């Protein structure tokens, strides 16, 4: 069972990388547009909307309804603690060693005093939480412009961030070190997926009502948010049309 899953994971990984390379071609030809794959993306977006409506959202809604707030907070903190491994790793790769040290300090405190990460004690002590991933690291290393891609279930990404996600999965303790118990690992991965989706429930209505074109709204919001993350919350100002 473990072997089969690992093989599946490898294959999916290889497939995604191959797809990425294939997709990178047209991207270079038309970088200004950011969305040379729009036809494919809109099709995948429609597929995802369908999947979400029948399978993902209802589960997230039930989870949201039955889970009391303290439990939700614990789940969020638990996965947030695991994410600090990724934060530390990527801050190091981006040369932000002070931030990486904070991440490691957070990990140490929350895994012990915070009881396996169920409580985010470090934040209360004033250790700032970061939000880093390998896609951002690639951007800092110079791959700052990348075409938008929409994947079913995975959601909005760029070609660069799709590659980044594969590296994140390989370096994620949830996927890697708990590999010995597939059942535990799969439960955790599913729980995290549902928890993340449940966090997005209030956003659904806003996007639904705000957007003239939902696909374009989601795409542009994703690209703006990523730019903000890459610059750690302080992106350089874009030109104002009125100036």
């Amino acid at each position: 069972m473990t072997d089969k899953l690992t093989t599946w994971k490898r294959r999916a990984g290889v497939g995604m990388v191959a797809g990425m390379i294939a997709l990178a071609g047209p991207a270079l030809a038309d970088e200004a547009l950011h969305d040379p794959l729009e036809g494919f993306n809109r099709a995948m977006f429609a597929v995802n909307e369908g999947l979400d409506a029948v399978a993902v959202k209802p589960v997230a809604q039930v989870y949201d309804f039955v889970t009391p707030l303290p439990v939700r907070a614990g789940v969020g903190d638990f996965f947030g603690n695991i994410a600090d491994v990724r934060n530390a790793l990527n801050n190091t790769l981006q040369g932000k060693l002070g931030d990486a040290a904070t991440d490691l300090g957070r990990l140490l405190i929350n895994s012990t005093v915070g009881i396996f990460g169920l409580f985010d004690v470090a934040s209360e002590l004033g250790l700032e939480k970061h939000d880093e991933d390998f896609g951002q690291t690639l951007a800092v290393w110079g791959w700052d412009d990348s075409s938008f891609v929409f994947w079913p279930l995975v959601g909005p990404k760029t070609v660069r961030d799709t590659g980044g996600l594969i590296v994140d999965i390989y370096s994620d303790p949830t996927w890697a070190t708990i590999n010995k118990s597939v059942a535990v690992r799969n439960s955790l991965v599913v729980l995290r997926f549902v928890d993340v989706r449940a966090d997005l429930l209030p956003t659904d209505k806003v996007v639904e009502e705000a957007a003239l074109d939902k696909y374009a709204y989601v795409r542009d919001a994703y690209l703006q948010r990523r730019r903000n993350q890459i610059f750690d919350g302080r992106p350089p100002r874009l030109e104002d049309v009125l100036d």
Partner: protein
Amino acid sequence: MMKKLITLLFATLFATLALAQEAPDALVKQVTEEVLEIVRKDKSIQNGDARKAIDLVDAKVIPHFNFHHMTALAVGKDWRKASPQQQQQLAAEFKTLLVRTYSNALTSYKDQKVVYKPFRMNAGDTDVLVRTEVLQPGNKPVQLDYSLEKLDAGWKVYDVNVAGISLVTNYRDQFGQEIRNGGIDGLIKAIAAKNKSLEGNLVKADGK
């Protein structure tokens, strides 16, 4: 030290003298706290009464926004192609749409707290960024930033950023799409149609 004290004294004095000329960070804080205080006490807004939330935003938040500038930012370079009358129509429709979105966020209020980040500005600044953060139990904090400009009528917000996403410029591609298809008037019609369908939902909710 003495100099600092005197500056501080004068700053406080001026702030008290003219509310309209209040420091931008103080303005954001005051309006935010005022609105949150009302929402905290109002169970019907918390239970999703969109109409009530819209009225609240209209009364408390909108006077501090510059919709002309916001709409120009959302439209981008095509803004210059619009006649003054078209610009006015666009700004009015866009305002309705944004108020709706903003009020919606209020109806999903769940014990959030707003933290105000340290703010610094130089004496002559007329364009500033006020940074805040929304804390919610069990969720990552959400960055919420306001861009303000100084007009004769005081400081006005012209852009709102949620988690780095500008609620204003996020419309640029969608608006461009409508303008390519039907010109400026096409865009006005498209936003008006969207507002009408949202109003329809509101009426349905009222009927319940």
